[in-house]
């Protein structure tokens, strides 16, 4: 009798322990973050959004952030380290959709909720919340080709060679290009999403003297406008992202026609929200949640109004102005700018 009661207590204790290990049903949670591009304004905003949302949610007591410049193999290492650290959920911006599958699978097996943000992953157990990159490029390119009158040549300033967001955008760009047979690409370069590199590349091209009618950029935008202004080249239409610097230029630079396509870095905060929802037992209907971009062109009154409303000179010029996503983020502007996570 006494023995069996002892056994029951022991079993009960073991079951409690097992459930705690398996699901960590109650908060506060520890969330792991893995990101492989460091020193880029968009990614920094993503990290700050993750920190701010973790803090604002009140359900996260610790963030474990692996944030450095590395490749898919390095991300496998970081993800496995996060598994070793025993986090409850991982928010990951994948270096490659397929290349990190093995570690994501291991994470799910260890009972960790995996949410990929910004770009997609092939691991079927992972949840994905992402900006629609193909649509991003298509919207901007279509606007550009229409604005130059459906014919002429454009400079195509891509992101990082080999990155999946870049290849998705390339698909969107080519889709728009196919709709305008009289538009040609005068010059195609990879900026590597680096400001200094992009500026040097456009200055090199301007000095070549070859004609061009428009510039499409993959988000390295304000330095391109700077280069045009500084070299006193006639201002051609420029497409960029909703980075604070570029949005400011669209509302202030005389004679500049341009359009900003939204690509919120705050998607990182949305990833935290999604992870917390899943941890609390509220799974989304679809494994993939896509956030569609908007285009703000300063050639229409409506677009100009949106740009003016969004312009925010207090932000770093490289930061996207869409610092929050309705329904997905709950932090204040002060919180994301402060860039402090729980316990900092």
């Amino acid at each position, binding site marked *: 009798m006494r023995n069996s009661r002892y056994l029951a207590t022991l079993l009960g204790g073991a079951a409690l322990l097992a459930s705690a290990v398996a699901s960590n049903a109650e908060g506060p949670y520890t969330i792991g973050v893995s990101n492989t591009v460091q020193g880029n304004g968009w990614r920094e905003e993503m990290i700050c959004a993750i920190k701010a949302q973790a803090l604002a949610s009140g359900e996260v007591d610790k963030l474990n952030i692996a944030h450095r410049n590395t490749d*898919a193999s390095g991300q496998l290492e970081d993800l496995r380290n996060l598994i070793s650290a025993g986090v409850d959920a991982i928010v990951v911006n994948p270096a490659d959709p397929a290349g990190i599958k093995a570690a994501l699978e291991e994470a799910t097996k260890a009972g960790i909720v995996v949410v990929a943000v910004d770009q997609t992953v092939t691991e079927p157990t992972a949840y994905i919340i992402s900006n629609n990159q193909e649509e991003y490029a298509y919207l901007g390119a279509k606007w550009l080709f229409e604005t130059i009158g459906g014919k002429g040549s454009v400079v195509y300033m891509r992101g990082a060679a080999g990155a999946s967001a870049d290849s998705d955008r390339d698909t969107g760009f080519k889709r728009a290009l196919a709709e305008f047979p009289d538009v040609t690409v005068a010059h195609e370069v990879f900026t590597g999403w680096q400001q200094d590199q992009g500026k040097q590349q456009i200055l090199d091209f301007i000095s070549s003297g070859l004609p061009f009618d428009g510039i499409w950029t993959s988000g390295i935008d304000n330095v391109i406008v700077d280069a045009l202004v500084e070299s006193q080249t006639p201002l051609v239409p420029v497409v960029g992202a909703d980075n604070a610097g570029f949005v400011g230029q669209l509302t202030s630079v005389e004679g500049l026609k341009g359009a900003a396509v939204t690509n919120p870095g705050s998607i990182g905060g949305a990833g935290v929200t999604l992870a917390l929802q899943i941890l609390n037992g509220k799974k989304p209907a679809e494994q993939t949640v896509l956030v569609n971009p908007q285009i703000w062109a300063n050639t229409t009154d409506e677009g100009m109004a949106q740009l003016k409303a969004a312009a925010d000179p207090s932000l770093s010029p490289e930061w996207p102005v869409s610092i929050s996503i309705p329904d997905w983020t709950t932090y204040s502007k002060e919180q994301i700018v402060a860039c402090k996570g729980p316990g900092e």
Partner: protein
Amino acid sequence: MMAFFRGKGWVTGLFVLLALLFVFTRVIQPNYGANDFGSLVRAVLPFAFAVAAQTVVVIAGGIDLSVASMMALTSVIAAAMMDGASEEFALLVVPFVLLVGFALGALNGILIVVTRVPDIVVTLAMLFVLQGAALLVLGAPGGSAAEWLKELVVGTVGMPGVPEAVTDWIPKGLVLLLVCLGVVWIPLRRSWLGLSIYAIGSNQLAAFRSGVPVARTRIVAYAIAGLFGAMGGLTLTMSTGIGAPIPGPYLLASVASVVLGGVVLGGGRGGLVGPIVAVFLLRLVRTDLTLLAIDPNVAAIVEGTIMVVVVMLGAFLAMRGRTQ
């Protein structure tokens, strides 16, 4: 003390440091176990081969800046060839890719010997050439790897008669690493050729006057580096299941581990064990930084500082040993 540091002291010191770091890891994360060790080994693999490549060249008195690009190129070649191909076909892909690495490494050496342009310039140029070639093979990450190849680094090695508690700590990746390095390095180290590599790194003129064919030895050293680079590229494809044309952070990491591993940058001194242990050390530091949730921007500073402090401490101890 002096004799100790003149002998295998440096490597022993690294092993002790690594053991201490494992204890520390266990303290901060009591659940750190065999699985986590397996993860560490898989993270070590590409770095270890990059370091092996760099070590051979540095011992021969050179430096190879193209090692990361070499890995990217061989990785995409392997992934592109195996894409949609049968499992058996991969049996041909592996030796082919190793051959490509060996040949491109030899090309590095030939260019250096024939043109007499310094190593650093030739291999820097090759860095760009190979990087461009990798992008030609695969414009974006893609391709695939044979299942059996991926399995080579997953799980542990079972041995009859050995309890699982022991074999759990022998991940397949570790066996693969030791076998691949051993097959090349051990015969080389014991051969006349290996001795020649040390000789030309130590003093080229003296080696030449002693009848060592300097040019040929240099080419072979670079070719072996290319071979190790190709092995590294294959491990990238094995672990990720794809090929990525943009080189990873292996060049600087390889130089760092070579220095930390006790190989003299001027050439002629050091071995392979030290740099490999150094790779484990640096990867485990990275693990600990993640486990401790250190601010990622600070983490890089910590990694660099640890390296400098260890090398300085080693030099200091060696110096004290000499004056006693």
